[in-house]
């Protein structure tokens, strides 16, 4: 007697209960708090906020806890939550030139107004496991210096622009609102605003690999880090009814401006061009990768031959989103037995036909 398999609501419920149990781990170990995640795994929180496109440290920390540290799963939780939020409007453009700098480096000038500020960086750490961290213990307090409230950190690209050696940023066009790919499906070719939005939400690993490929000759565009800056920027919101602009608070951002070569054309003299990267929080790797890919995607605009993956707009923008990617890759574990059955039947038929053909052609062998 045969009993058909039942997928069953109970099986699902029990699996989820087991998942919660495993998430908690050994109950003799203290439970991790979302505040601990926010404070002590802060770069994971930054990545989840960036790719989740929602600036909320508490929610990102909660998502990381719920996802057991699987950051793509955490990003997914944030995205799904974000979709349900009503929209009140759009902030004023952020001015990263007025950033309260915590880190700022340039690889193009040894010194410049405002100076180089290393800030909290892994750079120049020796990647040696610090076994002392395995035990608890407070690190030494950071060294401080008096804050120079007059300090001014002009953007390196603005300094280069003073000599007209770098392309101008296109002026804002109030008649052409900035696109939003979460409200309008992406169509190709896409303008730079949509491309940048896509990259800003894109998977860090994907951006990193593509950016890396441009350095290895697949869409080479000779980058210099004009500047990386990280710090706090104020978010302002205009209330037209009241005719005033209010501050909503500040966000931490990482901005990378790559300066790239451009040989010029018949109509334009040689000048530097820009690749731009921006990220929530302190995500230097993703801001740098993004700026490399942004520049590579400008191939058409700058009259460069498009022949490498990083220059291929449709390829890059269609595969950068890890929530789409993980969903479709993982959907392969859903039942496919109807299609598989169809393939099985065809395969069997083709093999029968193959056998029949071969025995026709070689009657002596068949006997």
């Amino acid at each position, binding site marked *: 007697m045969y009993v058909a398999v039942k997928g069953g609501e109970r099986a699902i419920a029990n699996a989820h209960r087991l998942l919660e149990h495993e998430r908690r781990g050994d109950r003799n170990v203290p439970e991790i708090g979302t505040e601990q995640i926010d404070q002590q795994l802060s770069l994971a929180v930054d990545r989840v906020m960036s790719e989740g496109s929602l600036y909320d440290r508490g929610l990102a920390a909660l998502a990381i806890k719920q996802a057991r540290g699987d950051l793509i799963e955490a990003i997914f939780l944030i995205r799904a939550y974000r979709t349900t939020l009503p929209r009140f409007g759009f902030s004023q453009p952020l001015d990263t030139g007025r950033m309260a700098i915590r880190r700022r480096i340039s690889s193009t000038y040894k010194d410049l107004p405002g100076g180089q500020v290393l800030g909290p960086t892994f750079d120049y750490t020796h990647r040696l496991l610090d076994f002392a961290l395995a035990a608890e213990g407070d690190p030494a307090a950071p060294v401080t210096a008096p804050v120079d409230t007059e300090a001014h950190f002009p953007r390196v690209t603005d300094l280069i622009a003073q000599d007209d050696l770098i392309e101008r940023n296109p002026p804002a066009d109030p008649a052409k609102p900035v696109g939003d790919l979460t409200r309008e*499906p992406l169509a190709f070719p896409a303008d730079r605003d949509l491309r940048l939005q896509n990259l800003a939400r894109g998977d860090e690993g994907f951006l990193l690999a593509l950016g890396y490929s441009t350095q290895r000759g697949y869409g080479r565009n000779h980058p210099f880090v004009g500047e990386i800056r990280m710090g706090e920027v104020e978010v302002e919101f205009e209330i037209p009814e009241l005719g005033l602009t209010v501050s909503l608070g500040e966000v931490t951002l990482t901005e990378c401006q790559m300066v790239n070569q451009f040989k010029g054309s018949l109509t334009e003299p040689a000048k530097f061009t820009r690749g731009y990267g921006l990220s929530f929080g302190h995500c230097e790797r993703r801001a740098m990768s993004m700026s490399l890919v942004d520049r590579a995607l400008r191939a058409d605009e700058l009259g460069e031959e498009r022949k490498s993956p990083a220059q291929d707009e449709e390829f890059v923008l269609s595969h950068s989103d890890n929530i789409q990617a993980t969903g479709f890759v993982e959907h392969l574990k*859903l039942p496919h037995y109807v299609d598989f059955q169809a393939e099985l039947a065809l395969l069997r038929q*083709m093999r029968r036909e193959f056998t029949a053909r071969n025995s026709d052609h070689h009657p002596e062998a068949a006997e």
Partner: protein
Amino acid sequence: MSRTAENYRGYNFAYLDEQTKRMIRRAILKAIAIPGYQVPFASREMPMPYGWGTGGVQVTAAILGPSDVLKVIDQGADDTTNAVSIRQFFEKTAGVETTTETEKATVIQTRHRIPEAKLQGHQVLVYQVPIPEPLRFLEPRETETRTLHALAEYGLMHVRLYEDIAQHGHIAKTYDYPVLVAHRYVMAPSPIPKFDNPKMHESAALQLFGAGREKRIYAIPPHTKVVSLDFEDHPFEATKFEQPCALCGATDSYLDEVITDDKGGRMFVCSDTHHCESRRAEGHVGRLGTPAAPVTEAAE
């Protein structure tokens, strides 16, 4: 479980916000007016993964009303895990009545099958679609395929299918078999077996297709010509099975192959669980079935 139920409190009827529903509804109206054409829509991130039915779920959420009766199937079955999960989602967020009976449902969301029972005019069949572009396996670029559709230039597809015939003697496509809708657009029917293709033709029910990750919605209105692509000398042939369902004896349904032991033992049973159960309830018995459904005890 109580924690999960708690999470849904505060969400709108059928989960989606009204603005999103309006956007999807506008796309659905265009899709119906242009049968087989893939309408781009601003697909939202859903609380389930892309590739797991987010397109179908968005379409269902946009059309569903409180008087609807919803059926959800995956691989033809109401009890497959993803079908159970999606049905629960709508029970929680819309509180609609759900059913496993094809005849009782007003909205049927499906993945990979069309029910065996003939659908009626008051019913809507919502397909979950992974890859909506029928030309995608020939041409990966959206910019190219969009132009091909605009020009109704489907020669590439015919060449490809004919290559199969030249090489294998027949078209080697067994599911997601492309169709021509209302003499105009070549359309991907989603990965239903080609066995189901004829059911789309002149169906009395409205058929809606939702592809969430690829952000496309398309439709076949009721009583619309849907022709599986073929050639005069190689007409389309739906898959036929050599044996009846082992449980209900049906000879006209799509069958799943079930491996029963590790010595080559296998049996074939209806993939449409409701069809099979109702036939058994009517007294039809297959080789390995018993008259009364469902069976509760496993045999030795």
